[in-house]
C-alpha cells in the first residue's frame, strides 16, 4: 500500500507550464530522487508537494485521501528544506534545533554560537538538523547537499537512512550522487 500517491500533477508558475502529468507513488521507507536539468521543475514539484504552490491539475493523495485539502494537517506531515537555509543570524544554533539532531550533523560544539558566525556549510547542516529533529513523516529536500563537505554528506546520508528505517519517506532533488539504497528516480 502506497502512503503517498501523486496523480498527473501539473504546475504553472506565472504563465509558464513548468511540468504536466507527473505521477509517482511512495511507500513508507521509500525515497524518490528528482532528476532534471536546471529549471526542469524540481523545486516547483517539491513546493507543490508541500502545498506551497497550488496544483493546476492532478491530485496528491495521502493514505488514499486528498492531501492538499487541509493544508495545516498536511504541513504537519512534512519537514521542508528549501534552497534557503531559513537560519536566523541572531539566534544560536541551539535555539534553532535542540536534541540529538544537532550532534548528528556535527554541530553540537557550536550550540551556543550565534548562527551568524556559522559558515555557509554549517548553516546548511543546521537546516538539515532541523529537518531531522522535526519528527515529520515526509522529508521534502531541495538540493540538501549544497555547500556540504564529503564528511557532512556522509552524515546526511546516515540521517536519511535512519529516517527511512523508522518508516519515513524522502523526496529529494539533487545533482550530487548519494550513497542511498533502493532509490527510485523521477526524471523531470
Amino acid at each position, binding site marked *: 500500500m502506497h502512503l503517498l500517491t501523486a496523480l498527473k500533477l501539473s504546475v504553472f508558475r506565472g504563465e509558464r507550464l513548468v511540468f504536466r502529468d507527473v505521477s509517482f507513488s511512495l511507500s513508507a521507507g521509500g525515497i524518490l530522487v528528482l532528476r532534471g536539468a536546471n529549471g526542469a521543475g524540481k523545486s516547483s514539484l517539491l513546493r507543490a508537494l508541500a*502545498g506551497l504552490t497550488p496544483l493546476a491539475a492532478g491530485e496528491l493523495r495521502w493514505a488514499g485521501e486528498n492531501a492538499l485539502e487541509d493544508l495545516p494537517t498536511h504541513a504537519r506531515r512534512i519537514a*521542508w528544506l528549501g534552497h534557503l537555509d531559513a537560519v536566523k543570524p541572531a539566534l544560536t544554533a541551539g535555539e534553532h534545533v535542540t536534541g540529538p539532531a544537532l550532534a548528528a550533523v556535527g554541530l553540537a560544539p557550536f550550540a551556543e554560537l550565534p548562527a551568524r558566525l556559522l559558515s555557509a556549510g554549517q548553516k546548511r547542516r543546521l537546516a538539515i538538523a532541523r529537518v531531522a529533529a522535526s519528527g515529520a513523516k515526509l522529508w521534502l529536500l531541495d538540493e540538501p547537499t549544497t555547500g556540504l563537505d564529503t564528511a557532512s554528506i556522509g552524515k546526511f546520508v546516515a540521517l536519511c537512512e535512519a529516517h527511512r528505517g523508522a518508516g519515513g519517506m524522502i523526496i529529494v532533488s539533487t545533482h550530487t550522487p548519494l550513497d542511498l539504497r533502493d532509490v527510485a528516480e523521477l526524471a523531470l
Partner: protein
Amino acid sequence: MMGMILRELKLSLRHAADTAASLLFFIIAGTLFPFALGPGPTTLSAIAAGVVWVCALLAALLPLDRLFGADFEDGTLDLLLLSGLPAYGVAFAKTVVHWLTTGLPLLIISAPLAVMLRMPAERLPLLVLTLLPGTMLLSLLGTLAAAITLGARRAAVLMPLITLPLMIPTLIFGASAIASPHPAAALYMLGAMLLAALPLAPLGAGAALRAAAE
C-alpha cells in the same frame, strides 16, 4: 501559535535597536512641533492629541517592512507556512508580535510626550484609551499591508501608501474622542472597527502570504 510568538519576541529582543528606532522616531517627530510652532501652551495643547496620534501612526510603520521581509528573504516564510498553523494564524501571530514590540511601547511613551506638548492632564487617560485600540488596528492593518506588498518592488514605499489611508477613520475617531466632551461614541466606534479588523485583516494577510510564497 504561542511558540511562534515567543520565538518572534526573542528575535525582536535580539534586534532591540529596531524597536528603539521607532520609539526614538516617535519622540523626535513629536518634539519637532514645539520647535516649528513655538512653545505657546494654547497652540500646543490644541494640537497635542493630533500630533501624538499622527506620530504614533508613522512610528509604527517603521518596523513593518521587516515584519515579513526578513522571513521572505531567508526562507523562513516557507517554514512558517508549513508550521502547521493556518496562514491566517501566522499573520495573526505576527500582528501580536508587532503590537507587543511597537504598539505597546508607543502606548506607554505617548503619555509623557503628550505632557510635553502641554496636553491637559485630565485628558491623558483618554489619550491612552483611544491609542489602545488605535495601535492594535494599526498592527492589524499594517500586517495586512506588509503581507500584500511582500516581494513587491519598493515595498517600503508601497506599504505606507496602503496602510495610512486605511487608518484615516481610526485617526478621525481616535483624535476627536480626546477633544470631545462626549468621547463614548468615538470609543465605541474604535472598538467596532477593531472587532471588524480582528478576523478580517489576518484572513487577508494570510491569503497574501500564501500568494507571496507561491
